């Protein structure tokens, strides 16, 4: 069996799983198209994240454990771009906040300037310290009142700057840009050091990004969440009242509720698929070109690539920024799908380490593998719990209904998920270290 056929069959297998979930309710399957499409949609988003991580790990060996942070920044972009502006926020302090941020940035720029242009020694240390202290206090002096101004505007409903009120689809590329900007800053510091400290830097900065999003209410209401974000299509309840839609549904023999929910989900599926295919195409094109050759050369032997005129640090930075941007886009898509931004929900196990499982299981270094891994592992993430319950019921078949052990085990089925993900990762790393679809 040729490789291509084999790999196509794997994709087909995942497709069949999803179709089964839509059609039968046997065993772990839900037997509902809403459930199946829901899984598919998040699967597509996961696939995009895996694609971004695969770009970094598979093609440049960069170990990013801050995926969560970039995903969250994508989500933030959705709020900033598409939610409606808070009345009066800009006059109450929005401008002040922007000015404070500019002031802060200027301080940093000045500090860098001093470091570069003064010779080492006491005067430089003094100048730097004075500048930083002065800058910090000036920044706080402008920033704090502006923030209180914004946060005082009806905190139960607003209390933030709000967004620009633009179409939500625009937020997706914006999410990519925001994540790219953060990645650039991180990469510049962590990859520019004498040896590479990317892992710990991303691990930490992802947490810091989440902390900022949780605590800076003026930005996106912090832990108070932003709900009811706009969607790229009409809402189900609107559709359910649209005579035209009802007619179409009726002519297809569909219940209006089912038809409207499916309509929304299918639209999302199509949009996500388009984004996924576009990114996949771009990644593949890059990979098969001299650019990809250069990246492989760098991966094979950094020293030699450097000697052959390739700027390794810059290329690493480029690919790190690109991969992170893709995670940002995926994050924005996910927030759009959820219809809300909830900074408290970002957790490294789910948003960083699970993506790693997807990439490794799918096949590091192969874009198609990453996509397959993304959808496949997501399916498992959802279905492990029912599988676990089934398994425990089977194993404890002989035990009485109310035996303490059985009850304890059944209570714990939810924890099966983490356990199983670990198991899958270990099994793949051991027996198929190249993943389901290995790099060619």
């Amino acid at each position, binding site marked *: 069996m040729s490789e291509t056929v084999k790999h196509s069959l794997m994709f087909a297998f995942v497709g069949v799983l999803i179709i089964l979930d839509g059609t039968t309710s046997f065993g772990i399957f839900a037997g509902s198209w809403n459930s199946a499409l829901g899984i598919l949609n998040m699967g597509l988003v996961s696939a995009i994240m895996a694609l971004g991580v695969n770009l970094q790990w598979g093609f440049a060996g960069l170990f990013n454990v801050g995926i969560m942070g970039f995903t969250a920044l994508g989500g933030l972009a959705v709020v900033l771009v598409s939610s409606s502006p808070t009345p009066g926020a800009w006059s109450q302090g929005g401008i002040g906040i922007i000015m404070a941020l500019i002031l802060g940035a200027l301080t940093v720029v000045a500090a860098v300037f001093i470091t570069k242009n003064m010779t080492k020694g006491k005067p430089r240390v003094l100048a730097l310290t004075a500048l930083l202290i002065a800058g910090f206090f000036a920044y706080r002096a402008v920033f704090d009142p502006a923030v209180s101004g914004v946060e005082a505007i009806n*905190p139960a409903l607003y209390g933030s700057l709000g967004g620009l009120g633009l179409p939500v689809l625009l937020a997706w590329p914006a999410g990519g840009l925001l994540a790219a900007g953060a990645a650039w800053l991180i990469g510049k510091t962590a990859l520019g050091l004498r040896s590479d400290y990317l892992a710990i830097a991303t691990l930490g900065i992802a947490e810091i990004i989440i902390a900022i999003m949780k*605590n800076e*209410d003026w930005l996106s209401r912090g832990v108070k969440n932003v709900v*009811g974000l706009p969607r790229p299509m009409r*809402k189900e309840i609107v559709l359910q009242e649209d005579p035209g839609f009802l007619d179409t549904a009726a002519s297809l023999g569909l219940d209006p*509720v089912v038809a409207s929910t499916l309509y929304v989900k299918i639209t999302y599926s199509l949009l996500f698929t388009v984004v996924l295919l576009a990114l996949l195409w771009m990644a593949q094109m890059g990979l098969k070109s001299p650019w990809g050759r250069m990246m492989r050369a760098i991966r094979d032997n950094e020293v030699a690539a450097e000697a052959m005129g390739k700027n390794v640090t810059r290329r690493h930075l480029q690919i790190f920024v690109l991969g992170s941007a893709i995670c940002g886009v995926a994050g924005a898509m996910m927030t759009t799908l959820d*219809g809300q931004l909830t900074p408290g929900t970002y957790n490294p196990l789910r948003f960083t380490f699970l993506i790693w499982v997807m990439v490794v299981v799918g096949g590091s270094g192969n874009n198609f593998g990453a996509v397959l891994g993304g959808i496949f592992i997501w399916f498992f993430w959802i279905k492990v719990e029912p599988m676990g319950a089934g398994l425990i019921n089977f194993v404890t078949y002989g035990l009485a209904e109310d035996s303490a052990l059985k009850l304890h085990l059944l209570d714990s089925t939810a924890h099966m998920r983490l356990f199983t993900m670990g198991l899958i990762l270990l099994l793949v790393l051991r027996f198929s270290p190249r993943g389901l679809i290995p790099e060619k």
Partner: protein
Amino acid sequence: GGHAKEVKLGILFGFTGPIESLAPSMGAGAELAMAEVTKSGMLLDTATVTPMRADTGCIDNGLSTANAEKMLADGVSGIIGGDCSGVTGAILQNVAIPNGMVMISPSATSPGLSTMEDNGLFFRTAPSDAREGQVMAEVLTDRGVKSIALTYTNNDYGKGLADAIKTSFEAVGGEVTISAAHEDGKGDYSAEVGALASAGGDILVVAGYLDQGGLGIIQSSLDSGAFDKFGLPGGMIGDSLPANVGADLNGSFGQIAGSGGQGAEAYFAMAEEAGFDGSSPYSPESYDAAALVMLAMQAANSKDPADYGAKIMDVANAPGEKIYPGELGKALELLKAGTDIDYVGASAVELIGPGESAGSYREIEVTDGANKTVQFR
């Protein structure tokens, strides 16, 4: 008509994730109500009620909507959940509203959810945090407190509540020296307590959870001598707090949603018999949430959400005969007979405006190592 013999109800809580320690008691509370109803054999001509649990992860929107979809596919007639306000919003917008499913949350307290367009499908047995802020301010002024330090658990509940307390208290002329967040489940709160102590204040108000960060903060404050008196909002009221902290807590005070101890006491006893901790946060509210759904079904004589959704407010509020935990069978009988009921339940349910708990509160003071109700507000 057309009553099936089985009613499935979904229980959608965060059995994993940050509140994984609360979820079991909440789930057990909801299941307790269902078991009670099934046992009574009164619901819709002896229908049995089957609970279906699924996980939200508390923070995992993707997982929770997927699980909600699965529940719908399995044919549930109502959802008890979600728990954390974040995922609750996600399930509501993406699953419940589009599918016309009734959802009743025992614990999502974010004021933001009040204004969500829910097509009359979303209810909650916990009051919005905005209300509690006012009550707390009253309690504080009545007790002559001039200044407070304020700390809150860093989620929408804590933050929203802290905002509400701060606004209300400052409106009546009180001073809030500091309002600082604490993360639940961190274990170490010395830095937070250091900052709070430094800011000072007559008492420390802890808008957190009694077996989470809130306890840690109180313990740490007492240990280091930073504060010796505490203001305790609803999330901090429960037997386990005085039990865990000991005599040092005497004199601290607070308030919790509820119009009287009778319902709660009855519930705690039932819970103890069933082998779980009924005083765990949101466990009473979970029992009530499940009870309300089933009572509304009986009132509408249908398990179709489109029918019974509208009845929830009716059974929850006066007029009618007051119903306490353990009396669900009686309530069903009354409803069948066409008599009005006013469900009080374990958490003194009273639903207002957008389908959320009105929030009458009882003021509590810790005396001799136990929570004593001082008065009602």
